């Protein structure tokens, strides 16, 4: 894409999110002259965002694939013709990641925050309150030396608590 540079990714990179990232770029760069690129890149981005938010359906995958084919083969210039490439490539080599987002509502790389569940393992938690202090939204409650709990409605999944916990008591899934 674009610069021709090389990007190294590992299991902490969500491939659906990578596609969404690239589409965000092309959608912003679309000049608006031809209909497939103007309208199509926006709709591809919307579908990818929907999947990242855990609201994707199996039909969305079909629509996305069809959109990619059409935008790639009918757009007026190179931008529209290459815009679907990140989606097509990730669909080809990492289809299981898309399916995990859609069917299991899971993002195994832990990138798509809407799909994350941050939980505290009561057996491992020593009740040190470090996590309570570091949480920016006050989502973690608990008394000293007793296991803490996270309120998922308040948690923004920033994972700051996970980084700070010395006992590995906080996990995402």
């Amino acid at each position, binding site marked *: 894409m674009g610069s021709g540079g090389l990007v190294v990714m590992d299991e902490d990179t969500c491939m659906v999110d990578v596609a969404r990232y690239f589409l965000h770029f092309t959608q*912003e760069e679309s000049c608006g002259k031809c209909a497939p690129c103007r309208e199509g*890149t926006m709709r591809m981005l919307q579908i990818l965002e929907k999947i990242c938010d855990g609201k994707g359906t199996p039909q969305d995958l079909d629509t996305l694939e*069809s959109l990619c084919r059409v935008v790639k*083969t009918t757009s007026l210039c190179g931008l529209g013709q290459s815009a679907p490439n990140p989606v097509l490539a990730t669909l080809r080599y990492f289809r299981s990641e898309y399916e995990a987002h859609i069917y299991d509502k899971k993002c195994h790389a832990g990138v798509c925050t809407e799909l994350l569940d941050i939980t505290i393992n009561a057996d491992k938690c020593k009740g040190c309150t470090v996590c309570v202090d570091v949480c920016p939204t006050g989502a973690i409650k608990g008394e000293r030396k007793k296991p803490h709990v996270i309120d998922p409605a308040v948690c923004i999944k920033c994972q700051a608590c996970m980084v700070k916990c010395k006992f590995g008591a906080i996990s995402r899934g």
Partner: protein
Amino acid sequence: MSETNVMINGIKIGVPEGASILQAAEAAGIKIPTLCFHPDQEVKANCRICVVEVEGQKNLMPACATKITEGMVINTTASRVLEARRMILELILAHHPQDCLHCARGGSCELQQISSEYDVRFSRFPQENAELSLDHSSPSIVRDPNKCILCGRCIECCTETQTVSALGLAHRGFESQVVPSIGQDLFESPCVMCGQCIHACPVGAISVREQTDDLLDAITDPDKVVVTQIAPAVRLAIAEAFGAAGDQLLMGQLVSALKMLGFDHILHTNFTADLTIMEEAQELLERINHHGTLPMFTSCCPAWVRFAEVFYPSSLEHLSTCKSPQQMFGALVKTYWAQKAGIDPERIFSVSIMPCTAKKYEAVRPEMIDSQYADVDMVLTTHEIVRLLKMAGINPLNLPETEFDPWMSEYTGSAVLFGASGGVMEAALRTVCEKVTGKPLEKLDFVEVRGMKGIKEATVDMNGTIVKVAAAHTLSKARVLMEQAAAGTSPYHFIEIMACPGGCIGGGGQPLTLSNTQRARRMNDIYTEDRSRKLRKSHENHEIKLLYDDFLHEAPGHRAHELLHTKYSLKKKNP
């Protein structure tokens, strides 16, 4: 011209070299859908609806923009072609209001037509409408930016054909919009209200500002006497709207239809077209004989007048001071005609039926109150009259004929010519020649100023007085002639300008949608009607003679000047 052989859907066909795939498919009898393509415009290739499969090409190719090459193998029905077309339609529809039932273009919308042909029954994408506000600023044209599909046809017509550039593109990508220049309201832009963009638009994003409801109110008001004038170019278009050839509808049938709709008195703009010729011929001779400003430009076309006011404010002395036939009629109907008919002018509601959107603007110009009332109370376009007739279930072709009301409805062949580009010039020449030479003209037809050529010119010898004339249609051509006049290099004495391609027969208020082929056909019908008239010279019109004898010359002072002439003013122009 040599031929190129191509294979379309298995059919071998030879087409002229340089043709596009779209033209080749048409020759083979295969229809390819288009949205941004317009036969009278340059290829834009931005809607991508016309894509086809070409052997050896990875991507689908736009049929409008791809030139054929020898041995090309084209497939217009491949599944990926159909998938692409349907997908693009779905994408456009998901970004377009779904109110087709009450859209001004419902039933004649190109997007609706193609979507129906491609069986697009639902969209897989959530509906996204920006909910932009409608632009009602112009007295002639309404813009609904929500319906715009960004095909660019209006922009090309405004920028290339008319050189007005009132419309342009703003923003990018999904946020792209067609906007009046620098994002102003249309009326504040340099728009001259010719209405050609209405014909260019494939959907309902630009439409005529309709006033049919106000007309029905006036008709039902017992205190109002609704008097109407019909313009020369209207009849042919109404006939076409009812599926007949132009010459099949008789003027008398149209009178019957309008009476049925509830109009009280039906008169003819052709009468004041003859009057315009009388006044304009007089003015031209005065300018020639007394070294006045030459060339003199006609001033019948309100879009052209506004164009001159906006773009050439320092050259306005070149414009004839004569009002247009519509406004001459307006000034006379509430003075002369009211007197003759014995009707209180205050009760008269003067309606004109015009092929033109700019006439709506002309009628509301503040100076057009010389009869002490609004000279013309309402202007209806042909498009609106056709809608009213259809709403009322009246097909004028099935009606008997009725006579026009007297005093302002007699007309000659010259008046009929006003409908076609070059017609005012031809009509004026007939009268000017006879005035100068004092002898009847042998040949009435000035064929040099006829036809669809952009600028037509002729040289006429009148007893040794050489008069060079030109007639131009579209404002890009008008600009060429006005530039010459402003620079003092114009070789002409008299120039006719019509803003719309083909003249009034191709006006912005005519039923949708127009192509130049249709305009050329209407032009021929105009010349046929001229030939069929017993009187073909404006100065032979009996009612005109009566008007001068009984009214214009009878009163002391300058009644003719007050009622029939006007002044022009500098109009605000955007940077």
